[in-house]
């Protein structure tokens, strides 16, 4: 068990709270930097996808995990980002500007979608965002002069002011840099007043308001940041696949994105990454195991959906805190051995809240 001896308020402001953090995150970063030479090309591509989905997951985590607003149409922001990037890149705009454009347009759309969130909550917000997702998918399919319709659109290689990123390795490092920057941005927000305002809105709107937090401003801000990150992820996604079509940004993609953070662990930044790893590796694992299963099961269509569904149900029932929660428990078990007891992380039922004000 580690006891941190605190002597200065600055210690609580640091992102790495103690030597262990510094050591392990440095190891992780070194590993990621060395990844192109450690992994085969196939697994490097998977790792690139993990990074891309992590960026999107960070955004949804901020929205759902920290602000308490659920979006069932998040693939739409991914789509807006991907298509903006494609159109701008194909028009010859350098990568950084195109990426900024993709993020900004997604953020603007997110801001607009955030407006209904000021009036509706919970399942109704889910419905509003769901229908928004359908609308965007339809727009991408019908606006053929720009998006190429259902035939899809090809995108050129990213071009950073004349330096064209041709290889997988270069693109991997591009994704890594953007992921690290986004993560630091989110972590910074969360330790500053803006992030605390989000958490306040998640836990009690009425008292957030009485603490002087402008609900409308922060809810739309949360939507905008979340959408911007999804847009950036979408832009990288488009570059990675080099070909996008509207059906990549349908409801299934939205559900995948939401599933990712629920399984990762709502309300933790780690959860976003764990969820992204889960989302990318799970299909690989399923296809590996497939060969060993009887043909009736292994070759059945919808096996992946079934496994996803079962895993989600299992998490909701047995580990609502997700993969990160499970990791916390395992870590605590070893740190406190042999004093860990079963109910340590049990959530107490909250006391009655004043429902009439809601």
């Amino acid at each position, binding site marked *: 068990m580690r006891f941190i001896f605190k002597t200065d*308020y*600055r210690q*609580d*402001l640091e992102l790495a709270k103690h030597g262990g953090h510094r050591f392990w995150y440095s190891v992780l970063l070194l590993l990621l930097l060395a990844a192109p030479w450690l992994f085969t090309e196939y697994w490097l591509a998977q790792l690139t996808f993990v990074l891309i989905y992590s960026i999107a997951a960070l955004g949804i985590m901020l929205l759902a995990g920290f602000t308490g607003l659920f979006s069932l149409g998040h693939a739409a922001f991914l789509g807006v980002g991907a298509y903006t990037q494609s159109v701008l890149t194909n028009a010859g705009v350098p990568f950084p500007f195109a990426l900024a454009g993709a993020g900004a347009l997604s953020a603007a759309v997110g801001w607009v979608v955030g407006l209904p969130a000021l009036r509706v909550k919970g399942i109704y917000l889910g419905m509003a965002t769901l229908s928004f997702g359908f609308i965007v998918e339809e727009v991408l399919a019908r606006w053929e002069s720009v998006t190429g319709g259902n035939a899809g659109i090809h995108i050129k290689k990213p071009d950073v002011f004349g330096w064209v990123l041709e290889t997988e390795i270069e693109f991997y490092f591009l994704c890594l840099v953007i992921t690290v920057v986004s993560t630091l*941005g989110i972590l*910074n*927000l969360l*330790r*500053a*007043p*803006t*992030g*605390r*305002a989000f*958490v*306040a809105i*998640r*836990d*009690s709107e*009425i*008292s*957030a*308001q*009485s*603490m*002087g*937090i*402008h*609900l409308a401003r922060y809810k739309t*801000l949360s939507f905008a940041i979340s959408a911007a990150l999804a847009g950036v992820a979408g832009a990288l996604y488009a570059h990675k696949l080099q070909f996008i079509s509207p059906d990549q940004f349908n409801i299934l993609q939205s559900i995948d994105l939401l599933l990712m953070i629920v399984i990762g662990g709502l*309300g933790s930044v780690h959860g976003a990454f764990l969820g992204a790893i889960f989302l990318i590796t799970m299909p690989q694992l399923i296809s590996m195991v497939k060969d060993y299963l009887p043909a009736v099961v292994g070759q059945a269509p919808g096996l992946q959906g079934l496994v996803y569904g079962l895993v989600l149900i299992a998490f909701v029932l047995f580990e609502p805190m997700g993969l990160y929660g499970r990791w916390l428990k395992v870590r605590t078990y070893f740190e406190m051995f042999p004093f860990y007891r079963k109910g340590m992380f049990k*959530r*107490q039922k*909250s*006391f*009655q*809240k*004043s429902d009439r*004000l809601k």
Partner: protein
Amino acid sequence: MTATLLSAKSLSVRFGGVLAVNNVSFDVKQGEVFTLIGPNGAGKTTVFNLISRIYTPTTGEINYLGPKGLVKLTGQAPQDVAALGIARTFQNIELFEHASVLHNLLIGRHTHRQTGFWQDILFTAAAREAELQSREKAEEVIDFLNLQHYRDTFVVGLPYGVRKVVEMARALCTEPKLLLLDEPSSGLNVEETDDMAFWIQDIQQELGISVLMVEHDMGLVSKVSDRVLAMNQGEVLAMGTPREVQSDAGVIEAYLGSLDDVSSLRRPAGASPHSSAGGAV
């Protein structure tokens, strides 16, 4: 003569056919503890919600002596009330449950934030400095209310009595001029209620904050209040010192019922108290 901090003029609120508050007027002076009492459904919490702008009065207005002079509170947006120096607690505790106590207190510092979004996301030197200042203020409140032990605990695991104190601490973190306490002693045991009384007195005397509270525990009310307003069914019954209000005939009637009510329950004269008992001895 101290200045009037908050003045409510003929407030009325109508929810459909229910007149929740009817023509209520009162003044809260700077530095006093002003208490609203009354039976359940008297409209006390509604008055609170009018001041914190969760409801808008049907008629009447509230004026408040803010940092920049007199403002019409009824024309303000709900989130702007805190910046004027009015902080509140809730009857059924509304803390940010999945955050630590310290985090809750820092959220209380929101109105004093000095940094914008971009400074936050880059966590610039200015943001770092502002964070340290907030932390120092929050620590002052932690010291004041003896919450050191719970600083890093998540609210979701705290006992009810501590949550009450944390909620008051969060309100104090906004550095208010007027503190609205909605039933500060409900759900507390005798000892905790005594602590609460001390703290309310300290808040008034050491920090110089005016307190407007709703309370049922008459022991606490008479110990800390300078003036008391008794309400019933949305109307003012009596106003004055705790002693005056407690001896007011209208107040006694509201709580205990009138003598006429009681007399109707009396058995007719001459009837034997055991006559209906069937001779059982």
